[in-house]
């Protein structure tokens, strides 16, 4: 089995189990306060860590990546939808890269 295929299987199995285990086994809310707190914070930290500084190196230049980051934060701060935010970030990159 090739390396990407092995990795695909690992990703799929992990993702699937994370989603279905509580749904099928847990019929009551998590009681432990530390575990609940940890589970509450993990999504925000992991997404923050994956976004920055990766966004700076995703585009043709650090400046356009930084522009997308700032525009994304301003838009989402003002509760723009997922689609509008994604479009706004892309537009910011286009404009900055056209200017420089």
């Amino acid at each position, binding site marked *: 089995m090739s390396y990407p295929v092995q990795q695909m299987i690992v990703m799929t199995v992990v993702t699937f189990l994370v989603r279905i*285990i509580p749904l099928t086994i847990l019929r009551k809310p998590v009681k432990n306060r530390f575990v609940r707190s940890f589970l509450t914070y993990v999504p925000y930290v992991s997404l923050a860590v994956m976004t920055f*500084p990766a966004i700076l190196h995703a585009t043709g230049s650090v400046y356009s990546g930084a522009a997308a980051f700032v525009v994304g934060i301003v838009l*989402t701060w003002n509760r723009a939808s997922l689609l509008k935010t994604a479009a706004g970030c892309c537009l910011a990159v286009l404009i900055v890269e056209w200017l420089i």
Partner: protein
Amino acid sequence: MENKTEMESANLFASGIKDGIPVGLGYFAVAFALGITMKNAGITPLQGFLISALNNASAGEYAGVTMIAAHATLLETAMMVLTANARYLLMSTAFALKLSPKTKLWERVLMGFDLTDELFALGIRQKGYIAPKYYFGMMSVAIPGWAFGTMFGIIFGALLPARIVSALSVALFGMFLAVIIPETRNSRVIAVIVVCGFFFSWLASVLPGIREISEGVRMLVITIVISVIAALVHPVEEEENKA
């Protein structure tokens, strides 16, 4: 009676499809960008289609693809995907409480398979118990949108001008921001941990000695350390359903 029940369930499925359309369109666009990232990691269109159809997870897939590109070990990938998807443990728990005790096991498993941020939000918005048929209706639009978006991104991403590809590659980060930033307005703790996440992730990427460690492991360690500290220093409120 029999006919009436059948009609009701057909209506539920149809209304799920209807609510799923904007989600499916948004998924298509974001998945297209994810496809471009996958192509750069050496993933074929068929592999990308399968990853997306089977995973239905933007952050999880992005994390996994980052690990593949970095030639990480299977264990490292498993840990990173687990971290990126850890929020689903919480969502799945909350979702379980919105299901009728009569919900069958296969229905729970099938809904769990596509428990995404957006479908979770739409499902949880329903009054009373979530009807599995309604959820399946949404899934029937969301999954193809996500999977075909990824495949087309891998195939056609290369044909697009460099500038367009450069612009599209930030779409996924926009989606991540759309999940985290609105909550920073409601919670000071979340605002602090998000800023810490940005800062320490950047710091780890520039500090000599630390920046040589693989990106995935860095992300994993930072996420766990910040979340543990936040959970110890500022545990969430006790069960809010006391009232």
